[in-house]
């Protein structure tokens, strides 16, 4: 185990505490850090208040990052100090865990806003209402077969009487905090001392998913914590002596990895991959040879095989639709990358529709450079005499997790592919587990190196550089993740998942629910569908090439709606309602899609106008539809399918009625 040198040894190398830690000094220090944390939280609140009234303003970013830096950097500095005790470090890390949830909590304190959150809200509602798992899910159908998160949330709702959103928030918050504790446990099991292990957790917090994506009410938020704890238990099972201790950690690994398999597909596949990589490392005699290493390797392979069997078995018998759900992403990404390499495609332009300022973009590139620098320093440090553990479990684990961490750098190439960007970004939550261990090794060493500079100027400069690199990682990691429309509140933004929810949309969905009840099948666009299929409790169509609902919208006035096969599917599927967002005819969506990612790519004309412009009024003339609701931006049509042969009066005849208001 890599243990911190004791203070006497440090004194011998020249490191001595510069100030005696008197109680008064300690209190002053504690109060300063606490004041920074409070001021940081206030700055974040200020940034969100600014963001509410502007589409995007640089001030909101400045306040936000000033707040985050004030809140986190002092705590990180205290964690990085040698003098800080292990228990105090754990407590400070817990504070970071809770406070780093603030950006997401303030973003949507009262209701879901992100795409997957609506889906999980509805899935949880269905479990509570029906008392059954595996009911067909809306918005993201595959989540029905991965009930881990929404089943646990439903139980909390049933037992506590909290709302679904409150229960989900508590569960995800606890997962978020437990994630950091899991990284510490994993790093400790790999062989890092408490300081480096806590720094590894801090470094993990710089990955693109940590602040927003993995804090949403979504199955991945729970499963990423389960992955980390599965790996921690796995590493503990490798490192503890054989016997009851190892059996205990093997049991926990099995339980956690099975829990992961019932919660989320992709992260469990990634978990199995990481475990296999580590198992390979544990089977390399050059790295792992020590007493009983063969037994340890067998344990590792058995646990990896179980995890693999768990997810393969779950997909095969419980969630076969997962293959169809995941495979297009990988296939298309590889195809696009091949095209980019061959020069037949220019690839994806990064930050093309981003609302964030230029310096966030720079930091997003910078985080890769910073990570590379720290990882390289970590590897070099390991190669120095005394820095390299002897062959055995520790070295093999370190080798395995270093390999996982280094996978981050080639994975960044996929970010240039339209289809691969999402998968690449999501893989970082896993690869950063290994990367954080590597960077923490060098981080702890660099802090010591900087604090040993004899000249105050050199010391301050070295610490300044380290602080700047940390701040770059903090800003850039998040900037490389979700766009500003997800991160900050603001006015309505057409075609943005997180800024499409308006009181008008909510009122329309509630009007429909109150008037017609739940469970009606309807056709609508992506952004209206999120609200209608969740709080509206309706069942929205999942468009595809075989079910091209966009053809209803694209038909020109005077032309028949079609194709006929679409009406067959609509009639046989009992689709009775069409909800139209009138802005589809005037606005281009921020995300670039109107319905789903598989829609044709020509919905925006070269002049920047949507193809739907001037094509929505036709619905009022379609005789097998009647418009039953119209608000400023939404129209609801009832469809009478299959279309009858009803004949309509066209010539003038005397027909006089009466309007009565308020009676």
């Amino acid at each position, binding site marked *: 185990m890599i243990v911190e040198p004791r203070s006497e040894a440090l004194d011998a190398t020249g490191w001595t505490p510069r100030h005696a830690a008197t109680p008064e000094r300690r209190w002053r220090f504690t109060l300063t850090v606490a004041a920074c944390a409070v001021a940081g939280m206030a700055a974040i609140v200020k940034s969100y208040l600014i963001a509410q009234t502007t589409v995007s303003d640089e001030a909101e970013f400045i306040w936000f990052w000033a707040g985050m830096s004030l809140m986190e950097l002092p705590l990180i500095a205290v964690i990085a100090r040698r003098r800080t005790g*292990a228990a105090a470090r754990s407590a400070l890390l817990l*504070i970071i865990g809770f406070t780093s949830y603030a950006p997401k909590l303030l973003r949507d304190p009262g209701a879901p806003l992100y795409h997957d959150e609506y889906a999980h809200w509805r899935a949880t509602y269905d479990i509570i209402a029906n008392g059954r798992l595996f009911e067909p899910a809306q918005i993201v159908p595959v989540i029905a077969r991965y009930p881990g998160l929404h089943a646990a949330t439903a139980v909390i709702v049933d037992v506590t009487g909290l709302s679904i959103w409150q229960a989900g928030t508590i569960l995800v918050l606890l997962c978020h905090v437990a994630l950091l504790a899991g990284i510490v446990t994993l790093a400790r099991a790999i062989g890092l001392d408490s300081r480096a292990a806590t720094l590894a957790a801090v470094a993990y917090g710089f990955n693109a998913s940590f602040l927003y994506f993995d804090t949403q009410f979504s199955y991945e938020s729970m499963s990423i914590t389960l992955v980390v704890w599965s790996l921690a238990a796995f590493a503990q099972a490798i490192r503890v002596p054989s016997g009851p201790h190892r059996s205990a950690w093997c049991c926990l690994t099995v339980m956690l990895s099975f829990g992961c398999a019932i919660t989320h597909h992709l992260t469990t596949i990634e978990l199995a991959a990481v475990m296999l990589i580590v198992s390979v490392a544990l089977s390399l005699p050059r790295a792992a040879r020590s007493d009983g290493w063969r037994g340890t390797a067998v344990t590792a392979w058995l646990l990896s095989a179980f995890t693999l069997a768990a997810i393969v078995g779950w997909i095969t018998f419980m969630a076969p639709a997962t293959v169809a759900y995941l495979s297009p992403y990988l296939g298309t990404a590889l195809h696009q990358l091949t095209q980019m390499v061959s020069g037949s495609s220019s690839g994806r332009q990064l930050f093309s529709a981003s609302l964030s300022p230029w310096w966030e973009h720079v930091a997003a590139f910078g985080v890769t450079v910073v990570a590379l620098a720290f990882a390289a320093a970590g590897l070099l440090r390991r190669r120095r005499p005394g820095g390299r553990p002897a062959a055995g479990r520790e070295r093999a684990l370190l080798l395995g997790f270093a390999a996982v961490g280094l996978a981050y750098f080639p994975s960044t190439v996929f970010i240039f592919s339209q289809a691969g960007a999402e998968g690449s970004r999501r893989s970082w939550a896993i690869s950063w587990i290994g990367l954080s261990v590597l960077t923490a090794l060098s981080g702890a060493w660099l802090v010591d190196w900087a604090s040993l500079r004899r000249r105050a100027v050199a010391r301050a400069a070295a610490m300044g550089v380290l602080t700047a690199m940390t701040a770059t990682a903090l800003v850039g990691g998040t900037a490389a993740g979700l766009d500003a429309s997800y991160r900050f509140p603001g006015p309505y933004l057409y075609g943005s998942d997180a800024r499409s929810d308006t009181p008008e949309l909510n009122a329309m969905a509630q009007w429909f629910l109150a008037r017609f009840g739940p469970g009606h099948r309807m056709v609508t666009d992506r952004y209206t569908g999120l609200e209608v299929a969740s709080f509206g409790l309706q069942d929205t169509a999942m468009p595809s090439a075989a079910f091209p609902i966009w053809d209803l919208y694209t038909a020109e006035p005077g032309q028949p709606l079609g194709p006929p096969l679409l009406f067959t599917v609509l009639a046989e599927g009992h689709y009775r309602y069409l909800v139209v967002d009138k802005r589809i005819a005037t606005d281009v969506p921020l995300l670039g899609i109107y319905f789903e990612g598989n829609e044709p790519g020509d919905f925006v004309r070269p002049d920047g106008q949507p193809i739907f412009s001037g094509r929505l009024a036709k619905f009022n003339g379609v005789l097998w539809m009647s418009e039953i609701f119209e608000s400023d931006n939404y129209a609801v049509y009832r469809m009478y399918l299959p279309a009858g042969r009803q004949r309509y009066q066209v010539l003038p005849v005397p027909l006089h009625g009466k309007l009565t208001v308020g*009676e």
Partner: protein
Amino acid sequence: MSDPPYRRHQGSRLRYRWPDAWPCYLLAAFAALALTALVPGGPARAVLAVPVLLGVPGALTLGAAQARRSVDATAFGALAVMLSALWLAFATLILTVGKVRISGASVYVCLLLVCCALTAAAQRQLRRRPPAEPAVLPADVLSVPDETGAAPKRGAWYAVGGVLAGTALLAGGALAYASAPHPAPAGYAWLAWSGAKANGVIAVGAQGITLPFEITHREPGPTEYRLAATWTGDGQAHALAAPRTLRVSGDKTVRATLSIPQPPGACAYRIVLTLTELGPAHPRSWSINAGVRASRGTGGPAGCAS
């Protein structure tokens, strides 16, 4: 000579010390979860129930697996939370396999049984002597985590302090944000049918029909509207009823009706209600429509088209 009373008392205390019987205490806490049903559902009940629900099953699992002493306080707490969350999901799976409806009560009973089994296993582990460790462990074997800077027992209090401080900061931020002024939401208005759900063209009897609808105005101030009813044919709108002007005050819903007699002939008629805002240079307009026809219409004026 018998022991003095205080000795007997001390003896009974020793018999149920926390380190020797903590699984039983946790089981009792979980069993007491049923009592929280007496507290009104919501945050008050959650404060009592969540720590038990998301702590006890996991802690007992760690006890049963004899892994409690292998991690520090923070890791123990975090792992207990994750294992408890998993047990909630596993309990619903067990109920699903048993074809039992998932509810608060059924999950509670299922988890209580699980906790009883885990408690028995954990108590058994406590009673067993710790296995003899090899005299000299291999160099790369992790024994127990070494806590530096604080005694392990103090580590738990540090963790509690960290949780409280983090929660306080987070709650403070959320409260500050909630209490700050927020921009007023954008207003809107709508027009919608409000009667019985029509399934196709509405049949009108000899006495005619009254179609109810509603106008909802979700804006702060009053607005004047013009309400018109027409029927359309051959691309032209024909007046159906005398238009009405109405003034709707802020945040109000107005109910209205359109009464029409039985239409002549066997054709269906497309009737259209239009609401137009009065006043602004670019007035907003809303419309809804429906098809009606005589319930037993025959012959009548010519001019039907499909």
